[in-house]
């Protein structure tokens, strides 16, 4: 290797006194520099060949990552679609109030821990920031609860004073309801809220994920709203059994609603993450393939050019010798 470098350097500066290398050391396939007569250089193919090797490796890795993401997606997708049934009764009973005006809102941002999943985390952060702007104002307070490393890194840059909780390593074990409910419990205990807005990517199909906001109200707000009327006002028409008061039932319902909505949101976000990773890795392998094609063309051109140059030198040298005779 060092000798090749020396040869290259030598032939660049002192073309007339370049040493002729021993034939055994030179191998035409792996030569960096072919020395023609008088040390004329030809173009190197080594650089292009290295790039081709690394691009091919990248293509293999991204293809493997796509397969892994596809298999994980199949596993989670069924669970996510089944879990949608958990919060339907709540919405039927309590209605959905995304535009409710409350004093303390807490925005729960769901994101992934790992990267290479396309743009889903940045869309979720954008929606969270928009919610912040919508809900902030005099006497109104917005706090963030961030689930996942990626959103934490992005939000840390400009909203770090409004973050109240961050949660990571949620995806280490397969997602289950117990885990999410413990998390919901922690959030309930640590953060004061009038309304919780959960921002996540809802999974529509493998290529379509929409950032969605699910709103869960605290029991006090529900009581206040039920006095105003509308869908919540019909709560009074329900009969309550079992000796509990309406306020208590509302509290239980609100907590359980939060837990169910969180469970569904976490599953849908996981699905979207896998889907986004699949499409990101797919386009990455395709790009790597295109890059490989272009590099192959360059490599062949370079190789043919060097062969042609060598032929020209040999022939011109031979004809010069003949003419001199």
């Amino acid at each position, binding site marked *: 290797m060092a000798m090749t470098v020396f040869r290259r350097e030598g032939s660049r500066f002192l073309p007339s006194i370049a040493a002729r290398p021993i034939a055994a050391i030179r191998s035409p396939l792996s030569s960096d520099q072919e020395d023609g007569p008088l040390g004329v250089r030809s173009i190197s193919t080594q650089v292009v060949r290295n790039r081709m090797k690394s691009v091919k490796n990248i293509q293999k890795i991204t293809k493997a990552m796509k397969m892994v993401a596809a298999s994980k997606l199949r596993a989670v997708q069924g669970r996510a679609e089944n879990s949608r049934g958990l919060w339907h009764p709540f919405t039927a009973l309590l209605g959905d109030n995304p535009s409710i005006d409350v004093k303390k809102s807490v925005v729960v941002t769901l994101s992934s821990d790992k990267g290479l999943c396309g743009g889903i985390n940045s869309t979720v952060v954008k929606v969270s920031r928009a919610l912040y702007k919508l809900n902030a104002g005099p006497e109104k307070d917005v706090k963030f609860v961030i689930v996942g490393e990626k959103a934490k890194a992005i939000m840390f840059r400009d909203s770090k004073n409004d973050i109240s909780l961050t949660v990571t390593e949620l995806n280490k074990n397969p997602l289950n309801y*117990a*885990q999410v409910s413990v998390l919901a419990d922690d959030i309930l205990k640590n953060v004061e809220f009038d309304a919780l807005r959960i921002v996540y990517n809802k999974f529509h199909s493998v290529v379509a994920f929409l950032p969605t906001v699910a709103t869960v109200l605290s029991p006090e707000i529900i009581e206040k709203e039920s*006095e105003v009327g509308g869908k919540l006002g019909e709560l009074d028409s329900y009969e309550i059994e079992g000796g509990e008061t309406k*306020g208590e039932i509302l509290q*239980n319902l609100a907590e359980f609603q939060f837990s169910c909505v969180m469970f569904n949101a976490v599953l849908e976000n996981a699905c979207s993450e896998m889907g986004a990773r699949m499409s990101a890795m797919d386009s990455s392998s395709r790009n790597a393939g295109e890059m490989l094609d272009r590099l192959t063309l360059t490599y062949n051109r370079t190789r043919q050019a060097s062969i042609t140059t060598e032929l020209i030198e040999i022939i011109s040298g031979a004809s010069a010798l003949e003419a001199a005779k």
Partner: protein
Amino acid sequence: MASTAAVPFWRAAGMTYITYSNICANLVRNCLKEPFKAEALNREKVHFSLSKWAGGKPEKPILRSDTPGV
């Protein structure tokens, strides 16, 4: 409007409804026989790391896990 009737025992003890229902679910899962019991208890594993923030700085993270140190 909401009269303070006797709160259920678990709320008086500081539990939320979620914790209460989780404990009940755990009791139901423990009623199963092996091998279904091990499968069901597998679905209860909890692991995440929580950290509270104060004034823009994260405090020491708390690991809530059934398998600490893993």
